[in-house]
């Protein structure tokens, strides 16, 4: 149990809607889908899913000098811009950021897939490293996001980079909570990032878990819907400033919410399949650490990606660990599965739900799967009294994570 209370004082986002938290939040509240057809993927042999929610093009030269950009693939660029927004939003000045009491814990599934493809394109097809530039390794290394963020912001505290695919950002928030809670750091910039790439969507395509509704991109993915057909991968980065409550109050900082429980368990059952009992165990662990019972949870933000097995297992886990009456929705219908960024981008929307006292429904959920209806699946924007909420994220490889977040 952490010694210090840990609160969120800053938010930053690069999302499939563009740069910044404001556009991200507005588009989600307006129920816009960010999913698009990527026509050129149709030329890749065996590729059936041509869907993604990429970050729209933008000119990074305006935001960052070349000396920083040269070591960044798209995902590190997203993380750096989101981190700068989060630090500014939290009102952290240069002395605070560079004094050694602030670090970063920012994950991604891998290093930049775009840079990996370019590097191995030279190496494998030309059998040569002669044309490889000096910045390429820094784009593909597993801690590319955290390293680049630390350099860009001058952070001199602890640097961590959890890499666990879809739970990378959830683990980052959990680890940041533990580091600040234990007093090792006064504040941490926490979150994750990922980018869209054919090789990423291809992973889900190969295991028959990618949505293939190429004719109706705005109607998919459709978590919890009886006709759901799989995942659509998205891109972006969500970064939040986690800070001790004492520090936040001493600075007079705005406080978006408090992280008061982190459940984190491994299922050791199957490399790919979800496991409802382990999901429930993660949720229960987070609730126990927060000291709350199921009746005190006002809402659960599901990981639900739109796969048949995953959505069903999660609905069952929520019903078991929380209650069958708790409102549940997933944000994947809006902006797809942003993988390493998902836990953080989705938590930014959760904090906005706490502020607005509204539950964002699952976009594209028109006919709830009766088997998932063991919880209250939210289909329309719903005013609600929200104080304590649960955030789930689960990953291939058996990682199950849940956070309890409370309004303060």
């Amino acid at each position, binding site marked *: 149990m952490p010694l210090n209370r840990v609160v969120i004082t800053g938010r930053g986002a690069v999302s499939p809607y563009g740069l910044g938290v404001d556009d991200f939040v507005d588009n989600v509240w307006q129920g816009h889908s960010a999913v698009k057809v990527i026509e050129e993927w149709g030329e890749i042999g065996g590729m059936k899913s041509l869907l993604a929610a990429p970050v729209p093009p933008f000119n990074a030269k305006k935001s960052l000098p070349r*000396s920083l950009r040269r070591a960044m693939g798209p995902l590190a660029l997203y993380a750096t811009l989101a981190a700068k927004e989060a630090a500014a939003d939290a009102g952290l000045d240069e002395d605070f950021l560079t004094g050694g009491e602030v670090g970063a814990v920012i994950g991604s599934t891998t290093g930049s897939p775009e840079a990996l493809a370019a590097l191995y394109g030279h190496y494998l097809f030309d059998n040569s490293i002669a044309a490889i530039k*000096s*910045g390429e390794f820094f784009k593909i290394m597993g801690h590319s996001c955290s390293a680049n963020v630390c350099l860009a912001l001058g952070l001199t505290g602890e640097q961590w980079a959890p890499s666990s695919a879809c739970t990378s950002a959830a683990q980052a928030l959990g680890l940041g909570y533990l580091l600040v809670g234990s007093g090792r750091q006064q504040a941490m910039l926490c979150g994750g990032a990922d980018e869209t790439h054919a090789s990423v969507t291809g992973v889900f395509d190969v295991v028959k878990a990618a949505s293939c509704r190429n004719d109706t991109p705005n109607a998919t993915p459709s978590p919890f819907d009886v006709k759901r057909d799989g995942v659509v991968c998205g891109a972006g980065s969500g970064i939040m400033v986690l800070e001790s409550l004492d520090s936040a109050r001493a600075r007079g900082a705005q406080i978006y919410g408090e992280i008061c429980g982190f459940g984190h368990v491994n299922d050791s059952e199957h490399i790919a399949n979800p496991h409802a009992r382990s999901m429930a165990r993660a949720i229960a662990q987070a609730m126990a650490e927060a000291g709350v019972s199921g009746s005190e949870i006002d809402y659960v933000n599901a990981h639900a990606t739109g796969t048949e097995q995953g959505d069903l297992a999660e609905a069952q886990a929520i019903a078991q660990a929380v209650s069958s009456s708790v409102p549940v929705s997933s944000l994947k219908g809006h902006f797809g599965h942003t993988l390493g960024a998902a836990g953080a981008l989705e938590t930014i929307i959760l904090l906005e739900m706490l502020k607005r006292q509204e539950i964002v429904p699952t976009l594209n959920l028109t006919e709830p799967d009766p088997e998932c209806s063991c919880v209250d699946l939210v289909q329309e924007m719903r005013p609600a009294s929200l104080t304590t909420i649960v955030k789930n994220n689960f990953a291939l490889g058996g990682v199950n994570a849940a956070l309890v977040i409370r309004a303060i």
Partner: protein
Amino acid sequence: MMSDDELRQKVVEVLAAEFELDPADMIPTATLYDDLDLDSLDAVDMVVVLEKTFAFKLSDEERLRSIRTMDDLFIFLIDLKNQSA
């Protein structure tokens, strides 16, 4: 064969594009590290770009390390051009 002036112009053109520099700053006396703000990683990329542009190897490490200014670089490349002629 490319003239020395054409070579200088080409060097300025490709390095300005690679390192987002203003060609007006890339005068012969400009130092690569201090005036143009390049560093050791940029030096690696500079070799990659110049080898690709001129199709000759910049393998004399000792001479490469001695390059301080744009003019040092021009002279080095003109020597290589003449050797390969």
